[in-house]
């Protein structure tokens, strides 16, 4: 980072863009007369995005040709690449593959076009309400819901007779087995997944992080319950040894290694275990995401991609059509079949493709998405997420018996974050 002190590297970015244009990357028309559209989206290993891009290009009868521009799988890294381009008003982006938490930020920055009413109705037909909310900002639709995602509780049926319903029960059962086989895998690295975990716990306890785009909610009772769960697991002998650096991937690897009894993770974990650890997969049970309070249903994390149309695209009409095609039920089923991504369209859960991808737990995935607790919608989302990570990480720093000081720290950091004040 030699150039770092010199500023945000605006000049370099411009130079690279110019090079890209010279190389023809930004060209809008190819020889056949089809408009070339660039779809920026996080890479998926199964190849479903390539497949749907090709199908939609073919179905457009020569109107447009969709080129895939792949972004890193890590959501933060993908976002960094996108916002640098969008911030520089880069017209090479036509269709934006957006993580569900980016909508408010991108829309407020005026980087996205609002979906016209007719297209809007078309792309949200049959889609979970919880998912449509993630594509909406100030009552305007900015994204076509493509796939959704949610977390389940995965456990070892050979160790655990009946899946626990609460976090406390789960930690009790794990501790009964001990660290040699009773580990619990979560996502608690200092990254976005940590915010997703805290939000799910708080939502499950009946609270919210924000009550409006710039107002902190954080009701004392539910927040204390959520913090106590984090602190208890963080200080428990059955927390995974790498809990402070754990991600979706380390959790999956840890579970596949065989010394874990429990894991909360997205649906990809099932197919992964089938492929990598058949012995573990044989005894892999699934249950709803654990509750925080016994008498309140859990509200699991909600993930997934929405497809937006860039405000700087030179071909918005074609881009809206492409976004609609890329996210239509056929495309969603392709993503389910090849990459195990759950559809955002609720009516698809009876389809045989979905039943086959989630043997025995398709209904559980559906109800989990339906009752999920979305992360807060605010243009200052990054600030909010960073503040949560800063004040609560690592989970072992939370004293489960007395969370008052952590609560105060979190509250004051969040008050600053929604006002976008101070360093984060």
């Amino acid at each position, binding site marked *: *980072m*030699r*150039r*770092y*002190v*010199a*500023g*945000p*590297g*605006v*000049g370099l970015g411009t130079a690279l863009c110019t090079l890209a244009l010279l190389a023809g990357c930004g060209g809008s028309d190819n020889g056949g007369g089809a408009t070339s559209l660039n779809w920026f989206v996080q890479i998926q290993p199964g190849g479903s995005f390539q497949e749907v891009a090709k199908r939609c290009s073919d179905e457009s009868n020569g109107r447009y040709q969709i080129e895939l521009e792949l972004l890193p799988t890590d959501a*933060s890294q993908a976002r*960094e690449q996108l*916002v*640098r381009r969008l*911030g520089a008003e880069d017209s090479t982006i036509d269709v934006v593959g957006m993580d569900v938490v980016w909508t408010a*930020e991108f829309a*407020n*920055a*005026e980087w996205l076009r609002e979906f016209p009413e007719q297209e809007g109705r078309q792309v949200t037909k049959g889609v979970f309400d919880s998912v449509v909310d993630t594509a909406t900002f100030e009552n305007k639709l900015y994204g076509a819901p493509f796939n959704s995602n949610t977390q389940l509780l995965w456990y070892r049926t050979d160790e655990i007779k009946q899946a626990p319903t609460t976090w406390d029960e789960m930690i009790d059962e794990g501790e009964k087995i001990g660290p040699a086989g009773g580990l619990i895998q979560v996502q608690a*690295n*200092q*990254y976005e997944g940590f915010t997703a975990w805290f939000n799910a716990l708080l939502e499950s306890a009946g609270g919210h992080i924000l009550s409006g785009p710039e107002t902190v909610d954080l009701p004392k009772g539910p927040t204390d319950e959520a913090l106590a769960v984090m602190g208890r697991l963080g200080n428990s002998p059955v927390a995974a*040894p*790498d*809990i*402070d*650096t754990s991600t979706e991937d*380390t959790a999956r*690897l*840890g579970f596949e*290694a065989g010394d874990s009894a429990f894991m909360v993770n997205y649906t990809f974990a099932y197919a992964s275990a089938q492929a990598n650890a058949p012995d573990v997969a044989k005894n892999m049970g699934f249950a709803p995401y654990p509750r925080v309070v016994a008498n309140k249903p859990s509200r699991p994390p909600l993930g997934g991609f929405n497809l937006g149309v860039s405000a700087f695209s030179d071909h918005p009409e074609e881009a809206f059509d492409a976004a609609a095609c890329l996210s239509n039920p056929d495309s969603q089923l392709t993503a389910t079949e090849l990459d195990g991504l759950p559809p955002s369209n609720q009516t698809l859960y009876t389809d045989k493709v979905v039943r086959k991808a989630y043997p025995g737990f398709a209904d559980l995935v559906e109800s989990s998405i339906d009752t999920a607790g979305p992360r807060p919608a605010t*243009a*200052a989302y*990054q*600030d909010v997420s*960073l503040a949560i990570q*800063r004040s609560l*990480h*690592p989970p072992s720093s939370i004293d489960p018996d007395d969370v008052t000081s952590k609560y105060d720290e979190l509250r004051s950091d969040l008050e600053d974050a929604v006002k*976008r*004040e*101070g*360093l*984060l």
Partner: protein
Amino acid sequence: MSVATERVRRFRLFRGETERGREERRLGWMLCAPAVIAMLAVTAYPIGYAIVLSFQDLDLRFPEEGGFAGLSNYGAVLSSELWWQDLFNTAFVTVITVAVELVIGMAIALVMYRAIFGRGAVRVGVLVPYGIVTVVAAFAWQFAFLPDVGFVNKLPLIADDKAWFGDRFSAFAVIIMAEVWKTTPFIALLLLAGLTTIDDGLYEAARVDGANAVQRFFRITLPLMKPAILVALLFRTLDAFRVFDTIFIMTRGAQDTESVSILGFNQLISRLNLGLGSAVSVLIFFSVLIIAFIFIRGFGVRMAEGRPGR
């Protein structure tokens, strides 16, 4: 000819400057003009732009807001506990890595200098780590220390499930080791250059006078190498102070291992708060200037040391 130009002419004559000297100086300026213009375009302009941004309230996510912010961005940075914490982290990594690198680098320089056979192979071998991209080196070290895929945890006397990046001390240890491994060759190379300038006759004379190897090192090598050592230290300290890649790959600043560069990155790229982020960048720039000032004024580093013809 006006009185003023006549005065200038007399002054120049007084200084012993000839017409020819002036011509040469002009030619000199013209020859280096392209380089100066390029430097201004790629260095002075971005620095100036960052300074302008740092006085503004500018957040790309909130295009309607903004305006002149005065010193409030600087106030926000300097009053933040985080800035001082990260400044401490950065200084800590800088001091430890540069100190370790100086000792190892000196040893390697002596080996390279004294190598009797395979001199070329030794020098190339030593330089390999420096030729590896920092991000690649950081990933290699990270993988080595990951409990599930790395080899370090499988070594004897090390707990199999030790999460190296899970606590501050061990995370810093790995970061510093990776930095030292990567940049020691740079120091060694600069020191080797200093070693070659020492006249062998001095050692022979000392030997005749009965000085042993330790005395020769401390009485001859070190004093004569002082300029080279200070230049090496200055370059490496400035470099180490901007540590970014290794920490970014390994912890992304978690476990309280964040450096000021990562802090700036978070404000600029994650939060898109260009005003606040530029203030951090400008403060880093001033920190670097202060370090350079201390070296040049305090320790008397002379960048032009050893230049012939003076």
